[in-house]
């Protein structure tokens, strides 16, 4: 036997394991994420860039838990919550998840509308067409094929990195702001802080990631590779996030009062050129469309799984009525709200993050309880250090969520 430093076998094995982490993390930079990041850049310049690093670390920690639970138990998160915390808690979480994901779906369609408008297409065309396309894709394709389509769509996130360079940022300033956190004691600053966290680490993605890992049938010997997958995905998310904040910070900060993501793109034209703006819109469109497909279907899966209802796209309406009702409802409402004349999009984005932000600490706590249960996880429970780190994260999240709820209840101009 020869010892090789580089083996194709290892590469193939890695390719067989990757996917869940990278897809999940990238679907996370969805329309509401892009909107939030770009508004954060426009409002505060480079000031919020530092958040990218702690958020990426927290994302890695949380997703690593989801991956480990999925690998060890072979069960979805909704399953485990149901089996360990009973009916009532499951029901409350499912209701929370439904509302949060409905809000997020609406935000995805809003993203589609905005991206269309940048190209001069009315939302009364883009939104219904995309709603039908999403329904068609979900109905027509197998889940696995769908995932491959999504992996390809992820390439469009590169658009942000390119437009980041086109925007010619002030690199020394960028580096300084990234490495030295500056905290401003203003409600708006905190609102953005939590919105950025709320949109990058969502309750929904923990369910999704764990489900994808169970579905792939990953085993404990794949854990190291799966970890790499999770870390790579999270870093990709962080990088995209970083570039979006940077683009708007270097082009728009202090120049105009931007309140709408559509204005972000149009403001880009004179500052960074028409290509940067178009790339921005293309990235937004695919991110939003990806979310509009994945969110309804996975939400329907998780809810049916937790409650114990029939689910599956290969079943007929009669066999699994609730599954189709949930999925159809999300797409229909998501698209219809956008058709209401004169509706303002930004409050929708913010609302979706508030609901997600409130739900997240609960989900993470349940995950921590599950992962520390020796009966479920055997020797793969969390280490002491890991628990400390994650609990510190939960405390910060909870404080920020409470702050956010208070600030959003107080009348003010965001």
């Amino acid at each position: 036997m020869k010892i090789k430093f580089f083996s194709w076998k290892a590469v193939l094995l890695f390719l067989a394991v990757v996917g869940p982490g990278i897809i999940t993390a990238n679907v996370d930079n969805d329309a509401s994420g892009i909107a939030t990041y770009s508004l954060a850049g426009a409002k505060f310049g480079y000031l919020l860039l530092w958040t990218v690093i702690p958020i990426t670390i927290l994302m890695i920690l949380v997703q690593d838990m989801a991956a480990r639970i999925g690998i060890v138990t072979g069960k979805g998160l909704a399953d485990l919550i149901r089996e360990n915390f009973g009916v009532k808690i499951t029901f409350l979480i499912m209701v929370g998840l439904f509302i949060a994901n409905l809000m997020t779906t609406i935000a995805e369609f809003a993203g589609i509308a905005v991206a269309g408008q940048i190209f001069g297409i009315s939302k009364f065309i883009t939104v219904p067409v995309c709603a039908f396309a999403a329904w068609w894709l979900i109905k027509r394709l197998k889940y696995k094929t769908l995932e491959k389509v999504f992996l390809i769509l992820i390439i469009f996130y590169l658009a942000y990195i390119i437009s980041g360079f086109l925007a010619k940022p002030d690199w020394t300033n960028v580096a300084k702001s990234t490495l030295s956190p500056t905290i401003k004691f203003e409600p708006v600053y905190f609102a953005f802080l939590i919105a950025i966290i709320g949109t990058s680490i969502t309750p929904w993605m923990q369910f999704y990631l764990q489900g994808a890992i169970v579905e792939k049938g990953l085993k404990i010997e794949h854990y190291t590779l799966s970890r790499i997958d999770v870390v790579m995905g999270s870093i990709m998310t962080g990088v995209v996030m970083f570039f979006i904040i940077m683009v708007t910070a270097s082009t728009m900060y202090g120049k105009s009062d931007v309140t709408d993501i559509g204005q972000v793109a149009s403001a880009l034209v004179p500052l960074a050129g028409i290509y940067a703006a178009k790339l921005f819109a293309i990235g937004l469109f695919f991110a939003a469309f990806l979310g509009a497909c994945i969110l309804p279907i996975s939400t329907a899966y998780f809810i049916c799984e937790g409650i114990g209802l029939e689910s599956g796209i290969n079943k007929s309406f009669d066999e699994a009525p609730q599954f189709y009702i949930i999925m159809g409802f999300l797409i229909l409402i998501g698209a219809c709200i956008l058709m209401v004349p004169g509706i303002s999009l930004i409050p929708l984005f913010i609302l979706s993050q508030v609901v997600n932000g409130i739900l997240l600490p609960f989900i993470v706590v349940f995950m921590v309880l599950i992962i520390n249960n020796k009966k479920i996880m055997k020797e793969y429970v969390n280490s002491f250090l890991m628990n400390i780190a994650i609990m510190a994260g939960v405390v910060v999240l909870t404080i920020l969520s409470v702050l956010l709820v208070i600030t959003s209840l107080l009348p003010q101009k965001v």
Partner: protein
Amino acid sequence: MIIHFSALKGKSIVDVENQFVSKLEDVVIIDGEKFAEVTAIVYRANGDKVKLPWKLVDSLNKYVYLHIKKSALQPEKINQNDILLSEHILDKQLIDVDGLKVIRVNDIIMAKVYDKFSVVSVDAGIKGFARRLGIDIPFVKGNPNIIPWEFVEPLQTDKNLKLKVSRQKIAKLHPADIADLLEELSPKERATVIGSLDDQTAARTLVESEPDIRKSVFDNIKTLRIAAVLEKMSFDEAADLLSLMPDERANEILKLTSPEFSAKIAEVLGYSAGSAGRIMTPEFIAVPEDYTAELTINTLRELMPKAEHAYYIYIVNKESKLIGVLSMRELVTSKPDRKVTEFMNNRVIKVLDKDPKEEAAKLIVKYNLMVLPVVDQFDHLIGIITMDDVLANVVPRSWRKISYKKIRKRRKSKSAAK
């Protein structure tokens, strides 16, 4: 009268003098074929779960009434082997072996059967779920999703419970139905189900499964077991499965099978996918040209071939070239001392090993054959293709699936009509 476990759980237990004992937390059951008898009630005393025999229960109403005094109670500790309804069954997943799907136990329905208080069915419907939340939905359209206890089987990757409530209902299903069921399960659960089947049933089930399902099963069960299951398949089926695996794994598995088996598999695997050689079975009955009818029949007795190999007997010459064929009927109706060459058919319909499998299918259909011999380029007989092989290979897999599901549906609606 039926009682929902959701209503029973949490009820106060009171003694004969209406003294409060504790709240009912769980019940112990003994699994039976059709019902599961409730044998004890469980409550907490000083933080530990303890049980009391069910025969101490006088009646169920607003409370659980005991017919002895609190001071006379002698609760026992919970045994390792006890099956607890709330802990082991409620909220867990079970397999509905009749509906061929995985269900979640939202509630459990109990009733008196032959004077014994028993579990009769599980509620997997939305009504049961709502009841647990304290909401009564008076009317739900469609299937209420209540499954009789006799049709459920635990789906626990947890070995403990598997042993406690082992019912082997799945093993009694048709392999094609088990294959349908596997689709509903996660990879880990699939391995558990396959693990509970005997080699023969496991082999048939895998043959009936979709390629991606087979792959997930193989990735999750031990190599030794795969080898044992493979040996129960016909060579072409086994070769088909092995070709889905990475070469290294396939070789590892083949090493664990018998030398004859692996040699024949290697032979079949030597043919390219889609060729007649790939779907053939390298097992057949051939006799030399100088045999008599009697000698041939005696040989058959000794060999005891499988049915599909004995529809026809092939005759080969000294260079083992295929020169004729006899049907079983022709053989047994002939005089014992006649030489096979005297009454065999010497115009044999055959297919070349390198020909496409569609060619084999055409020949079988055109000449109404049960079995088609396969020869190599030198006209040596090397294998046979049966009608089933051709059907399985030519008819799209989705056709077969649909028909199974339709048959089940029809059967179900018929029994419902009765």
